[in-house]
């Protein structure tokens, strides 16, 4: 089993324990699961709105218990394989942290924005399984949530540093913890046995040109994150628009025309989101 993650701060350690989730979505999913007429499509859509619940579902279906670790990357497939009973169990066991609801709401919307953008990009450039890109987009900042909930003092120090030095949340994380959320993502992905493509998407979205196995997913999430920031959807922890890595658009063969088309479509989707 993966070790806990030791930070630069004295005594501050990240441990994969109960993760927080949003009560609204949790309730919605719980109601759907109880109703025998609900489709897996409805339920997976509802679950997809919550990054922590999504992560738990994927973690469960990719655990060795079901016998196919590291194979399943979409919530829809996870639902078919887990069944409603297990989903119910996951919901019951998922503790509700008020911290998450109050402090991380902006991050959740940012993540949802990034998910929408990532799947729009994936569709525009003809990737198979755009829903996996959406999952990667949704989970790309999960490390921030885990760190914030488990280490509230570090969170406060990071927030203070962002304001004081006007740097990005990621830079502040590195100064306080010794690493940033993309490193935390990698640790979580290993711990949860997530498929390699999601792992790369989550842990390389800030260094998309360094991803080796599935560079495309890291690149798409990188651009998705950039677009979500550009449109100001939600809050990623600082006021900055993330820098677009050089060469990413070329690597994905996204011409300016394609990019504008994606942005036009997203503008409408983001309005629905608000």
């Amino acid at each position: 089993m993966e070790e806990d993650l030791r930070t630069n701060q004295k005594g501050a350690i990240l441990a994969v324990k109960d993760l927080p989730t949003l009560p609204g979505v949790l309730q919605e999913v719980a109601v759907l699961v109880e109703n025998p007429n609900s489709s897996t499509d409805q339920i997976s859509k509802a679950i997809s709105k919550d990054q922590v619940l999504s992560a738990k579902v994927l973690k469960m279906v990719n655990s060795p218990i079901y016998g196919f670790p590291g194979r399943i990357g979409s919530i829809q497939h996870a639902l078919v394989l887990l069944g409603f009973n297990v989903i119910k169990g996951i919901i019951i066991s998922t503790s509700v942290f008020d911290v998450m609801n109050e402090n991380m709401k902006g991050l959740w919307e940012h993540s949802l924005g990034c998910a929408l953008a990532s799947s729009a990009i994936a569709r525009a450039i003809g990737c198979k399984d755009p829903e996996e890109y959406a999952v990667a987009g949704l989970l790309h900042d999960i490390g921030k949530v885990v760190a914030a909930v488990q280490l509230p003092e570090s969170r406060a120090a990071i927030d203070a540093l962002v304001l004081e030095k006007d740097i990005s949340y990621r830079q502040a994380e590195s100064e306080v913890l010794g690493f940033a959320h993309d490193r935390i993502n990698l640790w979580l992905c290993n711990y949860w046995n997530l498929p390699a493509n999601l792992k790369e998407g989550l842990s390389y979205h800030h260094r998309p040109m360094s991803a080796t196995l599935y560079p495309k997913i890291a690149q798409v999430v990188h651009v998705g994150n950039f677009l979500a920031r550009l449109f100001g959807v939600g809050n990623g922890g600082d006021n900055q628009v993330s820098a677009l890595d050089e060469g990413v658009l070329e690597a994905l063969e996204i011409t300016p025309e394609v990019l504008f088309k994606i942005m036009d479509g997203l503008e409408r989707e983001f309005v629905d989101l608000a």
Partner: protein
Amino acid sequence: MKDGKHFFLVTSDAKLEGSLRALWPEEEVKWTCFARGSSALEFLFSEPPDLLVVDEQLPDLAGVDLVRLIKGENVYRQLPVVLCLASEDLAELQDFSTLEIDDFLVKPFSPPIAKGRLILAYHRSTRELDASPLTKLPGNTSIIHRIQDLIDRQEDFALVYIDLDHFKSFNDKYGFSRGDEVLLMTARVIVNSIRGFMGANTFVGHVGGDDFVFIVPREKAESACQQVIDNFDSIVPHFYDQEDRARGAIHSLDRKGKEQVFPLMAISIAVVLNRGGKLKHFGEASQIAMNLKKEAKKNPKSCYVMDKRASA
């Protein structure tokens, strides 16, 4: 009992915890105790213990509901579960026939009785069941018994046989452990697709290898088959390596050792309908199914073939 067993206890009753912990030395049985059902669930699903003891009276949910959540899953069916009741609970709990516990204890109990019961429950569960060791689904004995029982009672039902196309070539190329992954996935897909049609006569069994069976009410058969096919077809590509998946085929050796190209796996389904007591014997059903399956196999894509004689 051999050393190193890991038991879970779910209770908020400190006295109960104390008396159970005292039964064995730490190196023989390690207890993990949860005060709430919800906090136990996550660990039960991800790191099942060797035995589970549940107090009926929990602060957040009833012990029996916790048991139902766990035992509703074939994956966890072998986990032995002992329920701890107060004597007033016992009067209310009438329906032991549907409650999937392996034993129960009534508080207060004497330590030797508790110890004996727990040992018994643990060993009973480890004895061989008529279940596929891989998928834990009921095996041939249970399948035949179930079908013959329905036939004898002259009930209408649809008996559905499923097998995988091109499973052998997948196994040959990727190895049997990845073949097993596909079988486990198939079992989950069937179980969860059929669960939507819950009601009388619903049953899923694993004949062996890549052969599965399920039983549903006749009028539900077609939509059940369609759902199994849709779910299987959308998930199975994820079990191939990137390049094979992109190509939509694998290069592998045929039975004669010649290189051949095989398409991605699909499923062939044969549906035998029993109507008005037409079938007399289990053998008849399986004979009809085998003939229908040949028909289904002619289609390279996933498909199902219905028993036409019954619908005439």
